[in-house]
């Protein structure tokens, strides 16, 4: 094929088009080890994997990416997801963008750009995008640092975005009417048509997509900053805050108090993210400022079941794989993205170290009652294994957000790039 390089500046002989192709040379495997910190903390050994990297497409987007989310698939869809949304932060002009990774652009440019995300449309967003969730196939709810909560609609017929609904200063400090009175909305979660938001003002808002006024507001729900929120059940939510607490709120009760409070022992390390096991609702994972992954069993105790030393800086997001919850993904300010896998069959492998085709070390913990107790809850570090892989070999700046759906992973960084891996379990 003749090089489509434009005249006037680029005549590319074979050797250089190869050079121009570049794209993430897979790096040598780097092994990182971290020692266990406390009594109940487990040691975790991670191996940076080069294997998945060939499948990753990167795109530099000229804005720092704070959030990336796959558009949900229609029920009974067989094909993998192909549309995702991103939000930017810390720009004079922040944007919500919709991208396609379908075969749409595969014949567009050079062969080597196949699969690179293509921008479908974007729209201005006032303030940093703090959180973002799809409400349904067409609408996405965005939390802003200005305290606004906005629903944008993606019109797929003409590829445009428009504002569908907006709650001005859903989160605010002392004076809502003041020009700068808004408080950052830090987290949003949807269960169509319900939307729950939390913010730096310690407030919890229960909104409905079709109602201009909030259904319910809990002022002063938390004396510290609420960092994230997720649904536990349809009527209960979980929040995490900046003094290391995990709280359950029952929205049926009129009392403005949490129904349960869990907390990390003593050191009050802020929690930044929370996710619930998709099938076993009592299992909850949170990520903290020290990069630690905590697994909680909310049926018992007030402290986490296990603490896993993980990243070297803030863990910004944690996600169970929605349909394959033996897999968990975390990303961090230290520029790494980890894949935690408890699915490895445990019975046959007797040794602590496994010399497999992949250079991966296993971490062992309990296998007793394997069939009954989820691998996430077993806390005897002798038998059960957890395979942990760092998916980013040459980490530099923060990985702010990730999302997984089916075999597809998308993540965005402060290095102004978005990455898509469409063959996660290949």
């Amino acid at each position, binding site marked *: 094929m003749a090089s489509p*390089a*434009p*005249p*006037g*500046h*680029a*005549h*590319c*002989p074979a*050797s*250089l088009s190869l*050079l*121009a192709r*570049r794209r993430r040379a897979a790096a040598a495997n780097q092994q990182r080890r971290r020692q266990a910190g406390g009594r109940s903390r487990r040691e975790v050994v991670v191996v940076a994997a080069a294997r998945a990297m060939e499948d990753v497409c990167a795109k*530099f987007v*000229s*804005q*720092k990416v704070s959030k990336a989310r796959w558009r949900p698939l229609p029920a009974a869809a067989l094909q993998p997801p192909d549309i995702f949304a991103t939000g930017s*932060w*810390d*720009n*004079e002009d922040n944007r919500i963008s919709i991208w396609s990774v379908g075969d749409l652009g595969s014949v567009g440019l050079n062969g080597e750009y196949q699969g690179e995300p293509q921008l479908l449309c974007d729209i201005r967003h006032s303030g*940093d995008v*703090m959180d973002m969730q799809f409400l349904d196939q067409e609408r996405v709810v965005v939390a802003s*640092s200005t305290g606004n909560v906005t629903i944008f609609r993606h019109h797929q017929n003409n590829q445009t975005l428009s504002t569908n609904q907006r709650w001005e200063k859903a989160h605010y*400090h*002392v004076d809502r009417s003041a020009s700068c009175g808004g*408080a*950052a909305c*830090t987290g949003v979660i949807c269960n169509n048509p319900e939307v729950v938001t939390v913010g*730096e*003002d*310690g407030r919890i808002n229960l909104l409905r997509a079709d109602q201009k006024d909030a259904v319910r507001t809990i002022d*002063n729900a*938390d*004396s*510290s*900053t609420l960092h994230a929120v997720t649904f536990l059940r349809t009527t209960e939510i979980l929040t995490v805050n*900046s*003094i*290391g*607490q995990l709280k359950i709120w029952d929205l049926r009760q009129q009392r403005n108090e949490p129904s349960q*409070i869990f*907390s990390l022992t*003593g*050191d*009050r390390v*802020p929690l930044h993210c929370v996710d619930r096991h998709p099938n076993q609702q009592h299992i909850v994972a949170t990520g903290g*400022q020290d990069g630690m992954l905590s697994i909680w069993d909310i049926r018992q105790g007030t402290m986490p079941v296990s603490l896993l030393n993980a990243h070297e*800086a*803030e863990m910004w997001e944690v996600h169970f794989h929605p349909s394959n919850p033996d897999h968990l993904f975390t990303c961090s*300010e230290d520029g790494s993205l980890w894949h935690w896998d408890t699915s490895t069959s445990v019975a046959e492998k007797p040794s602590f170290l496994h010399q497999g085709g992949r250079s991966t070390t296993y971490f062992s913990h309990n296998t007793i009652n394997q069939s009954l107790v989820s691998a996430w809850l077993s806390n005897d570090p002798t038998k059960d294994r957890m395979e942990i892989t760092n998916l980013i070999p*040459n980490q*530099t*700046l*923060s990985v702010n957000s990730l999302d997984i759906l089916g075999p597809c992973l998308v993540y965005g960084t*402060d*290095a*102004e*790039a978005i990455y898509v891996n469409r063959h996660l379990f290949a």
Partner: protein
Amino acid sequence: ISSCVFVVRKDQDIYVQTLRKLFNESHGIFIGLQRSEEEFAGKSRKTQLVQVSKNYRSVIRACMEDMHQAAVSARDPALHSQYSTQVSILSAMELIWNLCEILFVEAAVAGPLLLRLLDWVRLHVCDVDNMVREVLSSENPSKHELFWNVVDVFVLQGRMDEARHLLSKEASANPTSVNMCRILDDLMKKMPVPSLGNTQTLTEMELKWQHWHEECQRYLQDGTFASNSHMESICKILLGDENAILEKKELMTTWYHFLVTRLLYSHPTVKPMELRFYAQSSMDLFLGGESSPEPLDTILMAAFEFEMHQVIKECSIALSNWWFVAHLTDLLDHCKLLQSHNLYFGSNMREFLLLEYASGLFSHYSLWQLGVDYFDHCPEYGRVYLELHIERIPLNTEQKALKVLRICEQRQMHEQVRSICKIMAMKALRNNRLGSALSWSIRAKDAAFATLISDRFLKDYCEKGCFSDLDLIDNLGPSMLLSDRLTFLGKYREFHRLYGEKRFSEAAKLLLMLMTAHIAPCSFWMTLLTDALPLLEQKEVIFSAEQTYELMRCLEDLTAGKSDKQKFQDDDVETMKVEMLRLALARNLARVIVKEGTLEGS
């Protein structure tokens, strides 16, 4: 007086949207280079550095392609010309970088040097590409009016195979010239080229060259090509005839193309140090005094003269960004080529340029995060620059503050950590978010501020009669010890909890301890004593005799400390409180004496 306000920007190109890709992607390469192990010696280290240089160039190229796309799709003519200008700047940057890569990073030796320069010219002289494409795609290329121009282009760039391919078309279309074509084709085929490997020595190469040169000379002299001026001129070019080559000026477009063509056909084994003579004379011949050299020419000339510092200096002046010089200088420094050069200001040139570039990044609303890593790799002044810049980052959300804080904490910048936490604590306080404010001051270990906030909590309690933010105060843990007042706040709240749980004797003990151990501030003693009232009035006796005496002493200390004048001013409520306390204490004492006496007696 002019009323204009000028926006002064340190580094203009920082604000070009498309260039942000360049800054971000090259940041990754820069970090990789700093981390790369120096222990790679000799050849493998050089291979590594050449690879780094190529990576930088590929980023420039990718950016150039994006910019070109933008220019093509731009409808606004002003925007179009702006993008086109950027494309040509990027193109020039890559041209210079590529030459520096050949001459300095790879330091190609005689032989391979020429091959590299040929690649360089082929890559960058692309004004003739359209013509080549047009002729090659025409139905009958040899009848095309530009046919011989294209053959000349191939010969001038040393693309012999392509030139011979075209000649064969001429031969088949024009039977009268078959013989001539065959001879010329044979000459082209036999032309010796320097080898990249060590398969032949330079002497061998020179011998072969001499031989081939003589053969060409013979054919020219015996008039083999006399009937075809095109082929005759090609033969003259093969012989390195300067005038014949200069006649093709339009096809070469630049003096450095002329230089490389001239070297190819007259000095194929040119040594790096000889380049400067040929470069200078080529430029003089090519420009012929008609036009004066432009900045780009001066820069390239400096490179051919191996005046590295001159190259960097000229680039700094000519380009509107620090990106290029900063990264190129850093790479050359890693090649250990700049050590001898120290500036009379700052530490050295590498650091000076990196500092300039990173400061530019910090002046940008969003790119400041990249700047941090550049400062990290400036051993002399990087830290100071970072300290000064990081404090000026506007902190509009807690999340951003946390990111800035992480940068400071990783580098043990305690002063900045304190100042950021203080700013955030003040903001929270202003927004009436006492819990957040306390969290920030605990993180900064700022005792004075923690005391201030604790006082706010206590004041709120005195006014409202209940605590706000219980979830926080109940979970202070060890951080309670940060300030005396915070300790008191935590302990006082503990007293309330014990009381609420009806653990009266523990509550009483704690209450007394708060006063006797002087944890409670004096101003708060009256409140504490009032809190003791319900305990004194319980059916059961809670305070022992000894404890009751202590309580009495506390009350008397408190009242005795006040002057008569103050007493006079105190309202009736206060006087009544004291009276009630005295009464309660006396009654309690009576009950406890009886009780203790009975117990001992029994």
